[in-house]
């Protein structure tokens, strides 16, 4: 894997949502309404066609150091979610028009002027990131700020992040940085930190990895995301059997009349 990447470090996130706002501003994404979700301070809900950065608010039990200074406050964690820009991207493989491409920076990019809105990428993403916009008709997701990267600028979210919770850079350097950070956090007594970077699954690594506290499942990060092309062989074998049965059955049915 080469190119650029995001390292989103939730231990530094303060839940300010500046990344969400910066992303919307820069990419000119339409508003997604004002809907009270009741899930802590998260009223965004999930990533989608009009949300390319999403700050999750995780509330848990009382954990020292995670609920402010009062001993009886809930622990409160934040983590900014984003398209993972998979190395084997389900959306890219599924796209029948070639609208979804891999950029020179390693990101996965939807060309809006090619997409015809067939919505097959929507059911091909193991992270539930891509979505068809019902008004525009095309599918949308994080562009990895392809336009900014071309001008050697950092993506809007990473630029706006006030705590450097969102780091952006060369993928190999960021991997090293993530390991260093993990070691430092553990040294400081944060024993529940977890580096989410599924490299053993069929997605073959991601260009946006995360440091979270607690279980990644709690952040809706699937433990083993699978690219759906892994099911193709089984499916086409079954299709061949189905076609063979049709052919043999029809030949038999008509053959009886002779």
């Amino acid at each position: 894997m080469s190119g650029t990447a995001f390292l989103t470090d939730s231990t530094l996130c303060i839940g300010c949502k500046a990344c969400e706002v910066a992303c919307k501003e820069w990419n000119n994404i339409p508003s997604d309404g004002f809907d009270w979700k009741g899930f802590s301070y998260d009223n965004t809900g999930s990533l989608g066609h009009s949300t390319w950065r999403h700050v999750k608010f995780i509330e848990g039990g009382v954990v020292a150091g995670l609920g402010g200074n009062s001993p009886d406050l809930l622990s409160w964690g934040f983590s900014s979610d984003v398209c993972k820009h998979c190395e084997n991207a389900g959306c890219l493989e599924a796209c029948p028009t070639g609208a979804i491409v891999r950029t020179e920076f390693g990101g996965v990019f939807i060309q809006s002027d090619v997409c015809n809105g067939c919505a097959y990428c929507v059911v091909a993403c193991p992270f539930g990131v891509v979505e068809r916009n019902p008004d525009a008709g095309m599918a949308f997701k994080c562009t990895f700020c392809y336009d900014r990267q071309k001008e050697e600028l950092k993506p809007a979210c990473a630029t706006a992040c006030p705590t450097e919770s969102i780091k952006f850079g060369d993928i190999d350097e960021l991997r090293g940085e993530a390991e260093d950070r993990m070691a430092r956090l553990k040294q400081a007594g944060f024993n529940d930190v977890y580096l989410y970077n599924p490299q053993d699954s069929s997605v073959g690594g991601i260009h946006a990895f995360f440091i979270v506290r607690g279980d990644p499942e709690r952040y809706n990060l699937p433990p083993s995301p699978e690219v759906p092309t892994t099911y193709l062989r089984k499916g086409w074998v079954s299709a061949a059997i189905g076609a063979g049965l049709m052919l043999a059955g029809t030949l038999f049915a008509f053959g009886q009349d002779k």
Partner: protein
Amino acid sequence: MNAPKNLLTEETSRRAREHRLAKIRHEAKEHGQVSDFTRLSERDPLSKAELTGYYGTPVLKRPQWTIEIPLYFFVGGVAGAAALIAAVGKLSSADTRLVRQSRWLAAIGGLVSPALLISDLGVPSRFLNMLRVFKIQSPMSVGSWTLVAFSNSAVAAAVLGEFNKRRGGRLVNVLTDGAQIVSVLTGLVLATYTGVLIGATVIPAWNEHVGTLPIHFAASGTAGAATILELMGNESKALNRIAIGAAAVETAMGVSIELSQTPPSESLKSGIGGWAMRGAGVLSGPVPLLLRLLALKSRRSRISLRKAAAISSIAGSLLTRWAWIQAGQVSADDPSVPLQLRRRVSSSGDGMDDHENQKDPR
């Protein structure tokens, strides 16, 4: 234990959210503080991290296809099987009326299918972009190209067949047969690839069954074609045999769905979609099978029994396609499969280790 998705579908509905917020506001007003508001449901026996992921919200996106897609699955399946019946009928010199009608059934299906697909597109005017590239790894791409080849060859076979009847000739004959062969080959793909299309996705209820879905859809399409041709007035014994075979396969499929116990398969059996799936299985499998076996015995009501079986098969085939799409919606909403929450619950049942307990003392 209750499946988490039942909690979720209730809980994520707008009304449930509003209700929950009202309760929180009320409690805050009355007592000046809120207890317990991170808990997803009173019925939740474990801490929320264990059972519900991120507030029980879906990990995956719902399929955004509209009603045109299950309809297309039906029409495309029928058309593909009709092309096969036309060719085999011609080969075994069945009556010309059956051959002609099945050719036209394939041709009309070949014209209706693209219309259905195009109307589902977000940007219908860009439908030709489907033919910008050919990607073997994308069933949607393979299907688009297959459909184009099928539509053209099926329509050509039907039109040339008419021409052949009026003004025969060696060239027209060869061209008709050529078109017919292409329509059979592509028709076989058309009737089966839709199973691969939904099977090779991240939707757990679909990919769990990727190994049988194409066979299931092949049987469903074949039953549809044979029974529509019967209702068009063909009393050919061959059609009856085809329909019996398809109903037998559909019976086996229905039983295997009902018996599957894996967590992804629960979406096939829950709620309205689950009953639709069961109903579809009964209508396409045992009902027509029984009626047709009865028809073999009974001389007097043979025709009406076969008609009833045909109507049941068509209704079952349509309902099958809708039920599978519906199951995909339910499955996408359930975070427990992609997050492997149930595996975690069952393993923590063996003895939750201290580390787990520490994380969430609630």
